């Protein structure tokens, strides 16, 4: 009983963790299911059919590659524009700072459906053709603020004396930026870029409004919830999950080894 009381936080925390992980486990298990009928919601029997033929569903892999392309371009766009803004905000003084800060904060403080609907109003009024470009424009727009926030935090905590030291050692402004400033800011920029990629790749609501008849991967999943969910969706979900976890763990191990060798 005393043990229980002492560890109540650990137990509650682990229960929450289980709640968070459970759906991923279900997705993984059901990627080996062989459903009767069109929907993959109840367990029938074990099968590896879907894993042997991951692109066996019409249009799914096409939508996946479209989503990856959009996410890649949106990441590049949002990271470049956002990093520029972050540097300007931290390093320089100028007028209308409050207004600029709220313009960056507001997209994060607005329900996505509001942005989605108003952007569609703009595109309809301009007579724009909905598709790849309107999705890309929208994704850069909502990723931008998150990149600014991530990069800003890093640049703000930078020691300005390092750059002064570089300049004292006769480095030009460009050299100082490339050799000193950028490497120090890099973790913030990478974090912002990863966040932008994840947000863009998984975005549904804004894409749903501004895609026209173009189908990204989340749009495909949404449609399949109405038409019938192929097992291959779970295969893609599981594969993405495993790849991402492996990349994160490998990165962590590499960082640990570097830290250890630096110590030795």
């Amino acid at each position, binding site marked *: 009983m005393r043990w229980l009381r002492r560890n109540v936080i650990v137990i509650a925390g682990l229960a929450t963790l289980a709640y968070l992980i459970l759906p991923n486990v279900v997705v993984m298990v059901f990627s080996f299911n062989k459903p009767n009928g069109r929907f993959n919601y109840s367990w029938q029997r074990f099968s590896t059919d879907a894993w042997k033929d991951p692109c066996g569903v019409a249009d799914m892999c096409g939508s996946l590659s479209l989503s990856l392309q959009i996410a890649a371009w949106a990441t590049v766009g949002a990271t470049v524009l956002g990093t520029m803004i972050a540097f300007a905000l931290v390093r320089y003084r100028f007028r209308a700072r409050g207004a600029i800060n709220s313009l960056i904060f507001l997209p994060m403080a607005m329900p996505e459906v509001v942005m989605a*609907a*108003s952007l569609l109003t703009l595109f309809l009024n301009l007579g724009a053709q909905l598709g790849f470009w309107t999705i890309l424009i929208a994704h850069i727009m909502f990723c931008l603020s998150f990149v600014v926030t991530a990069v800003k935090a890093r640049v703000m905590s930078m020691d300005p004396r390092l750059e002064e030291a570089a300049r004292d050692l006769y480095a030009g402004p460009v050299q100082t930026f490339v050799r000193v400033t950028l490497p120090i800011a890099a973790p913030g920029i990478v974090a912002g870029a990863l966040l932008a990629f*994840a947000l863009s790749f998984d975005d549904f609501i804004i894409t749903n409004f501004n895609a026209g008849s173009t189908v990204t991967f989340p749009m495909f999943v949404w449609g399949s919830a109405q038409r019938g969910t192929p097992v291959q969706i779970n295969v893609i979900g599981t594969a993405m999950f495993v790849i991402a976890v492996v990349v994160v763990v490998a990165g962590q191990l590499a960082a640990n080894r570097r830290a250890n060798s630096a110590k030795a």
Partner: protein
Amino acid sequence: MSALTEAPPAADLPVRKASVRKRLVPYWLLVPGLLWLIVFFALPLVYQASTSVQTGTLEKGFQVTWHFQTYWDAFKEYYPQFVRSLLYAGTATVLCLLLGYPLAYLIAFKAGRWRNVILVLVIAPFFTSFLIRTLAWKTILADGGPVVHALNSLHVLDVTSWLGFTEGDRVLATPMAVVCGLTYNFLPFMILPLYTSLERIDSRLHEAAGDLYATPATTFRKVTFPLSMPGVVSGTLLTFIPASGDYVNAELLGSTDQKMVGNVIQSQFLRVLDYPTAAALSFILMAIVLVMVTVYIRRAGTEDLV
């Protein structure tokens, strides 16, 4: 002597030119990104404002007639969905805080060398599309499935259906399923800011509280929780704002009785094509959320969220 201290007038000009160029640097850095936000975020809101006061039909086109009646009509017709959205989003936010706090605390103070592993596990669900994970809840909460069976034999469902959260033997297509989905989807957005603010707390403060004869409960109430307030504020905002406009969970896990305002905006915009009503609804939602967020931030006293 004076000729030396005074700068020659000819050299003055390039210096000033350079400083003008230097002064323009921040604007060159800002303009492209800000222009993007102005054209694709701010301007659309203006267009939407104009659409919301237009009347007309899809065939003949819409004209601005300052028809503010649309707002009143839209609110009158869809206020149950508004109330439901705020109720569901509010409940999900409270549940996220209650569930997320112990886990954030565990990662910050008790996990030791497991810290990074647990952090990866918290972020890991993001790597699978949230729509796929929300569909997984359909399996988990399926009628006659293990979860429903367990809740039934513990008589939990009797209580929840008496309270109106569930209906009979079902969890799917009830408010409980939608709130459960919302809570699940936005939980990491609560845990991560909580963890960040808890992790910053100096552990010597805990020791000091203990030395001054505070019980663990008092230490938590007087030291830990107040110091984690910035995380609580940004976590609740990051949960409540997206949850209030969400329509995915209500669509996939609920029935027509659980439709939220996001569902109405989506169907008015993409299926019914009644643009003025959709625009008005979206503006009302925006106004409600912004007012609530502003009041909340003022009262919680944290302005440095950006």
